[in-house]
């Protein structure tokens, strides 16, 4: 393994090979999307609907006007952050599926800390900063815990992160329905609203909230971290083979927990934006499934932080268009889920194409890393 890796390092650095790999990474998913579209068209024909109508509506609803594009971007905002929350631990070989809990708990913590800050009239920017920080710390601790349990106690991180997610939601419900409940929220228990003055607005000139910008910045930063730093290299190496990494003297435990903390921070930040930009308070609406959609997105992005952004936007667009499809074609909501399912399966299957398409292989024989 290490001999092969060492052998491949010089060759991946030649521009030609990098180009080929990039082209392959672009080509395979596009083919997969095309195949999904064909399969889904067959499904539509079977139930007697027009695929042409469907895809033109998806275009109208997802990208057809500046309004549609903004909708897609707005919907993608929490998905980018949730996608990152799965992708980063995946690079170190962990399957963390508990971003939902970190998002909910982070959002709740932000809403909770906001109550005294708003009461005492702390300026909005400072309040946001503190809210975002506490949300990230909370989310980070939560997912970090799953990483810690994994490395130091041998607990399967997939199970523990999922279970922690349920605990997180229960904790939020406990406080929202109890000590921190706003008495005015009789039939929908919620924390005290932060008020319009403390709501994070939209990016100027758009209807898209700042969570989208934060997602892009984080995606770029995490891409650099994972691909261009020694930390990222060590993390990826650990992901490849923990024992080899340990033999090399890498601080594997620290790396694992760090990646998990980063993931939790992303999810917590998504929770902060849900509270500060959307709901203005914490309540059961925070549990919207973004954390689980993020898993799908990260898989489709092949755990590449940069690729998470376009995939999340695609999902945002499909969600935005889903409503239009329901309304115009009278199709049930599940239609869009069928499409998402087909895309997911086809894209995962397409993984097998990597390294098998002659065209994208470097001329030097035998190097497929």
């Amino acid at each position, binding site marked *: 393994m290490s001999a092969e890796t060492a052998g491949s390092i010089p060759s991946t650095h030649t521009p030609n090979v990098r180009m080929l790999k990039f082209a392959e990474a672009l080509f395979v998913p596009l083919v997969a999307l095309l195949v999904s579209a064909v399969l889904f068209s067959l499904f539509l024909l079977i139930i*007697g609907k027009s695929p042409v109508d469907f895809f033109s509506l998806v275009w*109208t*609803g997802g990208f057809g*006007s500046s*309004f*549609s594009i903004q*909708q897609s971007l*707005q*919907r993608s905002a929490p998905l980018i952050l949730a996608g990152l929350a799965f992708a980063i631990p995946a690079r170190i070989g962990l399957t963390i599926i508990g971003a939902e809990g970190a998002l909910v708990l982070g959002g709740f913590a932000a809403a909770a800390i906001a109550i005294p800050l708003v009461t005492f009239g702390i300026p909005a920017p400072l309040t946001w900063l503190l809210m975002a920080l506490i949300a990230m710390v909370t989310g980070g601790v939560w997912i970090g815990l799953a990483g810690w349990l994994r490395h130091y106690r041998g607990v399967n991180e997939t199970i523990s992160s999922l279970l922690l997610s349920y605990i997180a939601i229960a904790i939020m*419900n406990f406080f929202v*329905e109890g000590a921190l409940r706003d008495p005015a929220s*009789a*039939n*929908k*228990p919620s924390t005290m609203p932060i008020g319009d003055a403390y709501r994070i607005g939209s990016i100027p000139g758009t209807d898209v909230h700042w969570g989208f910008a934060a997602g892009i910045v984080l995606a770029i930063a995490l891409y650099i971290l994972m691909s261009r730093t020694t930390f990222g290299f060590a993390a990826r190496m650990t992901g490849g083979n923990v024992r080899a990494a340990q033999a090399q003297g890498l601080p594997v435990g620290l790396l694992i927990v760090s990646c998990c903390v980063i993931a939790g921070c992303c999810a917590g930040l998504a929770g902060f934006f*849900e509270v500060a930009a*959307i*709901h*203005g308070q914490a*309540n*059961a*609406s925070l549990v*919207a*499934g973004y954390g689980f959609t993020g898993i799908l997105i990260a898989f489709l992005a092949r755990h590449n932080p940069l690729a998470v952004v376009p995939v999340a936007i695609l999902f945002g667009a499909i*969600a*935005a268009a889903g*409503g*239009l499809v*329901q*309304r*115009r074609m*009278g*199709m*049930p*909501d599940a239609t869009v889920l069928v499409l998402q399912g087909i895309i997911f399966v086809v894209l995962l299957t397409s993984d097998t194409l990597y390294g098998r398409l002659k065209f994208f292989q470097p001329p030097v024989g035998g190097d497929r890393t």
Partner: protein
Amino acid sequence: MSQFNLSRRSLLKAGAAGLAAAALPMGYARAQSPIVLGAVYVGPRDDFGWNQAHSVAMEILKQVPGITVIEEENVPETDAVSQSMESMINLDGANLVLATSFGYYSPFVVELAKKYPEVQFRHAAPLWKEGDPTNAGSYFCYLNQGHYVNGVAAGLSSPTGKLGFVAAKPIPSVLSNINSFLLGARKSNPNATVQVIFTGEWSMPVREAEATNALVDAGCDVIGCHVDGPKVVVETAEGRGVKTCGHNASQAPLAPKGFITGAEYKWSTIYSMYADLLAKGEPLPNFVAGGFHNDMLQNTPYGAGATPEAIAAADAAITDLKTGKPIYVGPLKDNAGNVVIEGEMDNYDPVLDGMNYLLEGVIGSIT
């Protein structure tokens, strides 16, 4: 959508359409401008519950010339709902939006109403108040009256007087239904008790089934419920051989042996009224609320589980409610022994909207 429907729903729709034809005057073709009505649902339109009740009534508006109804289901109570509503306005030209789930109102309906002052928004919960945008509004029916009727019928259909209730969350609107169910049952059987289990979630089928089984194991022989989709509760209870009372929409087809009756919304009354006003070009009211007295509730036709005495008593109870006879007549104690209601409460008294107790006779706790 229609080709996916069960025949039962088609029947309901046909019934609803007939109702509309009977209830609405002719002449909608003269509506001044085309009305595009966007309806948003939080769950599937065929959930045997809350969303189905709305969807069935919406069919009435679809029959009205000059009104185009566009519908979107499974829209969560997040900014997804603002986006759906905004998309209806911008891409479909909706000028009336009916947001049918509680959590849609604040901040989503309120903010959109400010952003689109020319569009009318109506929301299905009593949340609109003076100071909110005037192009927004609320409509609501007090279903606890229906649960009272359920209770009256259940009290006379239960051999033991031990009733069970599967409830979602201990919030006022749910507590009011449980307490009304108890008061109805006590009216026809003074020794009746209601044992309640809260599942904690609006829709948690597994826990709803567990709760139903636990109540049956505890000896309850009639099960009522207040969860989003009562299908699981009703089917589980039927499978265990006990009787059931319905909630939100008709669950009668799910329990051919044990169904007594159910508390059903009659949103069609409100929707027909909206259609009527829109056709005349008149403004919609900002706040509409009601119950049996203004034909906004109905009870599901009696099933095989209802005894003849129960049917007679329940019909009498409905007649009483239509004349405004109060359900909550003090002194009433909560199940910790504190007096919570002194005198007679009007059925629409806002004090009841803040109910945070279970009455004496209800076995269970809200904490």
